[in-house]
Each structure stands twice: as C-alpha cells, then as structure tokens.
C-alpha cells in the first residue's frame, strides 16, 4: 500500500513539474488519489469487522478515516472541476496551454 502511495506521489509530482497545463491538472488529481489512500492506510486497513452496532465483535475497523476520505474526495473533485474550467478559459484567452507562454505575457 505504501509503495502504491509513494509511486502515486512520484508520478503526480513529475506531472506537476511539466509545462503543459493539462498534465499539471492530471498530476494534481493523481496526488489527490495518493493522499486519499494515505488517509485510508493511516486509519488502519482491515481489523476484523465493519463498524456496526450489535455485531458482537470487539475489533472493528475505524469508520472515521472513511468519512474523512469521502469529504476529501468530494472537495478534490470540486476543485479539480473548477481548475479544469479555469484552464480551459485561460486557454481560450491566451491561446496556449503552455505554462511558460501563459506567463510570458508579463506586462512589465
């Protein structure tokens, strides 16, 4: 699991450091998945049974990380959507998706 998280972070970082806007956004969302898996792992993966009342088990999985994860996924989804719209708009206005060229417009 930690290897998967590590490689997700690596790939994400690599993509963020590239110049194309779309790659950066993809990198962001891959890092987002890495973070989600990290939360899940940190909460403890499988410890016996689902966290239901009255099941008669003493060791059950902690439900809190899953709740956190759900919130994090929703927020990540919303911000990624916003970022996609934003970059599309930037592409329309500047006519390029190369980050260097977008910043090349410096007026000073």
């Amino acid at each position, binding site marked *: 699991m930690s290897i998967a998280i590590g490689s997700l972070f690596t790939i994400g970082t690599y993509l*963020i450091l590239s110049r194309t*806007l779309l790659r*950066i956004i993809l990198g*962001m969302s891959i*890092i*987002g998945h890495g*973070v989600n898996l*990290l*939360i899940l*792992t*940190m*909460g403890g993966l499988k410890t016996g049974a689902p966290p239901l009342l009255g099941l008669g088990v003493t060791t059950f999985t902690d439900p*809190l*990380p899953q709740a*956190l994860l759900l*919130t*994090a996924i929703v*927020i990540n989804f*919303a*911000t990624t959507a*916003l*970022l996609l719209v*934003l*970059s599309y*708009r*930037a592409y329309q*206005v*500047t006519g390029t998706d190369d*980050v260097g060229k*977008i*910043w090349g*417009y410096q*007026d000073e």
Partner: protein
Amino acid sequence: MNNLTILPIILPVIAGMIMVVFRNQIRMHRALSLGTLTLIGIVAVMLMGQIQQNGIQVLHVGGWHAPFGISMVADMFSVLLVFTNAVVAFCCIWYAFFSIGEEREKHFFYPFALFLIAGVNGSFLTGDIFNLFVCFEVMLVASYVLITLGGAKTQLRESLTYVLINMISSFLFLVAIAYLYHMTGTLNMAHLSVRVAEIGQGGLMTTVAFLFLTVFSLKAGLFLFYWIPGSYGAPPPAIAAIFAALLTKVGIYAIIRLFSLVFYHEPGTTHYLIGILAAVTMILGAMGAVAFNDIKRIITYNVVIGVGLILAGFASFCEAGLSGSVYYLIHDMIIKGLLFLLGGSIILLTGTDRIREMSGLIRSYPRLGWMFLITAFSVAGIPPLSGFIGKILITEGAFRVGYYWLGGLGLLASLMVIYSMLKIFMNVFWGYPDDLESNPRISVRGLLRPMALLTALTIFLGLGAQGLYGVVDQAVQGLMDPSLYIAAVLDGKLP
C-alpha cells in the same frame, strides 16, 4: 452548549444561497449582504459578553459530545477575529457597491463574498482539525471564484498560480492530518492537545508539526509568500482588500491556534523556527516594499511584513508578545483592508499604478490624501494610532525572551514600511497635478465613506486601547493556558 457559536457560519451561507436564487435583484443582494454582516457583528459582541462572564462557549453540533462529534468553540481570541472580520468585510463590500461594476455584481459577487466569510468564520470557530480543513476549502473555493471573476488576462494568469499553490497546500494539509490521526487517534483539537501531552512531543510529532507549519505558512504568506504579490494585485480593489485583510490572517490564526494548543511542548524547536521564518519574511517583505514603484506591489509587500511581525510576536511565546500579536492581528486586518481600498481608489482616479506617473492628487482629493497619510502613519506604528500598541508589545515580548535580533528586525522593518508609505504619499499627493484639465474630476463620495469608517476605527483602536485591554488579555490567557480550552470543550469527560 450555546447555539450562538454557529451563527457566524450559518448566516452568510443562508444569505448567499438566497441571493443565488434571486440572481438579478442587485439591490436585494446589497442590502442582504450588509445586513448579514451586521448580524454577525452583533452575534460576535453578544458572544464576547458571554465569554467574559462564563468563559469559553462551546457547541457540540448535533448533540454528539466531544471528542466524537464536531464542536464549535468560541474563545475570546476567535470571537475577536470574527468581529473584526465582520467589520472589515462590511466596509469592503460597501466599497464594492461603488467600484465593482454591474457585470461582476450580476455574476454572484456578493454570494461568493459571503461564502468566503462563512469559511473564514468557520476556520476561526471550529474546534476540530478536519473541520478546519473543510472550512479552509470553503473559503478557498470562494476565493478561487472571486479572484477569477471578470476573467481578465492577468486575473486568469495569476489565479492559475493561486489555485495550484493552494491545492498543493491542501493536499499537504490532508497528509499532515492523516499522520496526526495515525499517531493520536483523534481529530478534536482539545483532545489532540491532551493526547499529545500524554505521549509527549517526540521527533515524529515535531515533524508533523513542521508539516502543519509548512501548510499554514503557504496560506499565511509566512516565508512562502511568493504567490502573494501577483495574486493580490490581479482582482479589483474591493476583492483584493478582502483577500489581504482576511485570507492571510486565517493562516496566521491556524498557526497561533495549533502551536499554542497542541504543539506547545517544544518551543525551542518549533517557535524558534517560526521566529526565524518571521524574521526572513520581514526582511524580504521590506526589500520588496522598498524596491518596487507601483502601488499594488508596495502594499502587498506591506501585507507580507505584517505577517512577519505578527508571528514574531507569537514566536516569543510570552504574555507580552502574544498580546502584541493579538492587538496587531486586529489592527492588521483593519489597516490592510483600508490600505487596499485606498490604493485601489488612487489607481481608479489616476488610471495607472505607477507612482512616478502621478502627482498632486491632494489638490483635487484632499480627504483621500489625509486619510492616506493617517493610514500610512498607522501602518508604520506612529504613537496615537492603532499600530503602535501592537508593535511595542511585540518588541517588548521579543526582548523579554532574549530574541533581540527579532525585535530589532521588527523595528527596522517598520522604518522600511514608513519609507515605502511616504514614497507613495509624496509621489502621489504632493507636487503639481500635470493633467488637471484632461483628467475630469471623478466623484469619490461613495468610495470615501467606507474608508472613513475604517480610518476612524484605526484612530479609535489606538486611542481606546485601554478599553480593549480586558478582552485582549482574556484572549491571551486562553492562548497561554491550553487547559482552559480543554476543560471547556471536553467538559471533564474523557473517554
């Protein structure tokens, strides 16, 4: 249990949603947003009274008792900030009536400003670290929209940086929360404080603390402020003023809250590092403020210096330094809002942001000029105005714990601030207006009123500091003694 504590978050959200439904009723938008902010101010004052009498007010949302449910905690420090937030936002939105333009008003400027305020208030009032993350996101998403609203080319370019930087810091925030949860098994801040005290703040815990520090430094502009000058210069003045007054302050609040409540066991490592970062921030900010020649840059670098100064007071971590930080935080919210509104007005009147191309503005707009002078003195900390008390307390705190270099740098940065402010004042307001005929007189009466309110506030805050003393003192007591906060939230019932 006190239901008032959640009102500052719920009220703006409800008002904002009503506005989204009635999209074209601009008059209603205006009235509703000012009304909501007034209500938040009233609620904050009521809460202040209750806290003075009965101590910290807590609401366990949904009746789920801490540490299992999410609790809203209103202590004096956060309520003070909520109140200041309401006042400053009131003035900025009032200013927006006359400057933001109908196009932006129709495209949901007011609802998003209110959502932003809901997020800011939520960050101040929450007692749960994951909820802090959620409130940060509410605030940030609203700010993403506000910064791009209008879609000018500079706005799009700067907002891309802004959004990317903040998304990365949000991911780091989540990583830090995951590690912290793994080590302590709780997310409630009071409970976290207890658990961290139990297991001790070893090397790993301090590493997590540094991770949190990185995240909040990115948001507050402590050392990692390279995104600030660009993105605060892009949106129109009313929005930039809201950003400058509120957004960085939320990061500062989070640093102060976390490092006084949870990670306070190793001040030699963590607080010393905050001190060093604050010093570097002040130096770099002062260099920026002196070097540039356009108004927007100069005032954004002044925001950076302010951040450094507040956290310099916090780094000393003694009573004097912390009271200085609290005073200066309140002062800084008011004055940076005012500074951005003034700078925006000047740019609006002259049509340029380069100070060498303007002159003699005081002949046509005397009141604007005098207000700017008062603000400049207040930012620099000239005695009767509000910046003075905070600065003197921060310096005293730094000297008391032996951080002479930090106190000295704070004073030096103040000198640079006064130099940069007077550079604007002398270039813009003195001299002869060169194109009086070609530049028709624009009416600024509407713009002046909200700024006059903020200017009056900085004068009163300076003269009436004695009246504020009791409140600030209680806030500092709460910060210095985490057991008060823990007792109020957990109510003595530990699982």
